[in-house]
């Protein structure tokens, strides 16, 4: 079957007949609505603005154009007038230029004059400053001369007067450091005694655990032993210390608080058993041995008051010499109940 045959048969497809009563039903069901044109609202007499809008818009545009034309005419007239005035002014332009050049020249001269005045004023200030600095320089020279003279004066007048102020201060500092070393040494001995059944150590080197460093065993004024400051505790022995150790190992209780425990032979600082350190003038005191122990005793009087050095633990204490010749430390304000 070819395509033409198929199309021919399709075009000749049977058409089913409608029921006869369908036409009547369809015709009876016709409900027509009024046409749109009949429902329109007549324009006449309605919305006058809308009706006259094109005319009004055109008139408005015309009026706007007229106004703009008038404004432009006015501007043109003003510009012409301005142009004329400028032409008149331009006629005297060369003269104005000359005047302007003269004015500029005068202004430049005035500025140059102002600059010269400022330079002159600055020059005066510099001269004043130079004079002041010159006087200061002379003063400095004079002070230097005076300083040099004062520095040379003690040596020139009396060369055997002793060490200078700085040397004295250095010696005082070393003395205080020596007292401090002995104080720490006494504290270490006390700790060692507490840990060893009330017995004192046999030597200074035995207190390695109680002493923080070997530096406290070397007097800062002992220049021959300053090299021992770097020695470790393992290599340290009693000969390396600046201080003479006098405590006896079997005597640890504080039965003789004024007994001498250690001595600095350089500063004549004495560490006593009670932990105090006494700085003694060797011209007034000397060491006395009693019962195998050393004590301090005045040379000339039986009971003198010894000024105590400003060391911790010995403050507010005074050394009194008793009749038996032994020095004891007693508080300055003793407790009346004791």
């Amino acid at each position: 079957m070819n395509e033409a045959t198929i199309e021919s048969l399709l075009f000749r497809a049977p058409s089913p007949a409608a029921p006869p009563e369908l036409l009547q039903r369809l015709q009876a069901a016709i409900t027509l609505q009024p046409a749109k044109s009949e429902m329109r609202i007549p324009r006449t007499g309605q919305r006058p603005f809308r009706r006259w809008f094109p005319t009004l818009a055109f008139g408005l545009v015309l009026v706007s154009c007229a106004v703009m034309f008038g404004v432009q005419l006015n501007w043109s007239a003003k510009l012409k007038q301005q142009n004329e005035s400028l032409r008149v002014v331009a006629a005297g332009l060369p003269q104005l230029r000359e005047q302007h050049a003269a004015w500029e020249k005068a202004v430049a001269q005035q500025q140059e004059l102002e600059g010269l005045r400022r330079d002159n004023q600055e020059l005066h200030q510099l001269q004043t400053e130079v004079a002041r600095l010159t006087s200061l320089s002379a003063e400095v020279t004079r002070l230097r001369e005076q300083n040099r003279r004062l520095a040379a004066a003690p040596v020139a007048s009396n060369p055997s007067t002793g060490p200078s102020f700085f040397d004295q201060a250095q010696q005082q500092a070393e003395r205080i450091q020596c007292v401090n070393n002995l104080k720490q040494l006494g504290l270490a001995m006390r700790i060692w005694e507490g840990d060893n059944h009330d017995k004192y150590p046999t030597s200074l080197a035995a207190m390695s655990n109680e002493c923080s460093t070997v530096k406290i065993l070397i007097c800062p004024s002992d220049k021959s032993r300053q090299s021992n400051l770097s020695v470790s505790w393992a290599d340290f022995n009693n000969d390396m210390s600046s201080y003479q150790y006098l405590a006896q190992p079997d005597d640890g209780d504080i039965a003789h608080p004024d007994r001498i425990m250690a001595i600095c032979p350089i500063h004549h600082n004495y560490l006593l058993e009670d932990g105090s350190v006494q700085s003694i003038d060797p011209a007034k005191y000397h060491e006395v041995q009693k019962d195998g122990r050393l004590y301090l005793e005045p040379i000339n009087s039986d009971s003198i008051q010894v000024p105590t050095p400003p060391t911790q633990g010995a403050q507010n204490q005074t050394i009194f010499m008793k009749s038996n010749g032994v020095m004891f430390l007693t508080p300055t304000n003793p407790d009346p109940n004791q």
Partner: protein
Amino acid sequence: MSDYAEILSERAQRGDFSAASELVSLFYQRIFAYLRRLSGNDQDAEDLTQKTFAKTWQSLASYQRRSSFSTWLHGIAYHAYLDWRRQRKVNDAQSDEWWEARAAESPTPYEHAAERELAHQLYRWVDELDEEKKQAVHLHYYQNLPLNETAEVLGVATSTVKYRLREALDFLRSRAAKSESLIERKI
């Protein structure tokens, strides 16, 4: 008929009842046949025809003659059928007996019994087409609408209608060829 239908529709728009009645007389057979072929029974076809014309009178005021009245009316019928089909979800393939009966009572003379049998099978194969191609065949061949009007009713381009018809003819030709080969084998 087209110009006459346009004149009648214009008169009906102005409220002329006789013109509307004449329009019904002119088109109700075609619309009923179209819907009868699609829906598969007389009762539904009658209902759909009535709905189509009721919708026509409702929308007549908005008819602006962008297409012919026939095309516009077929468009309404087509959408009425789509609504009905969407609601019913029916399989609208026609039974063989129906097409056989229609072919038998058709006033169009067939040349011989074999052609009648062939036409009967052809209409049955048309119902096996998918919905888009089937609508194109119904409107163009069964309802004798031109291609452009068929496209307007379906809301697609004319080229699309041509493509669908070409696909439908290819399908029908292949089915016919297959059927002929089977007959020859039997012989």
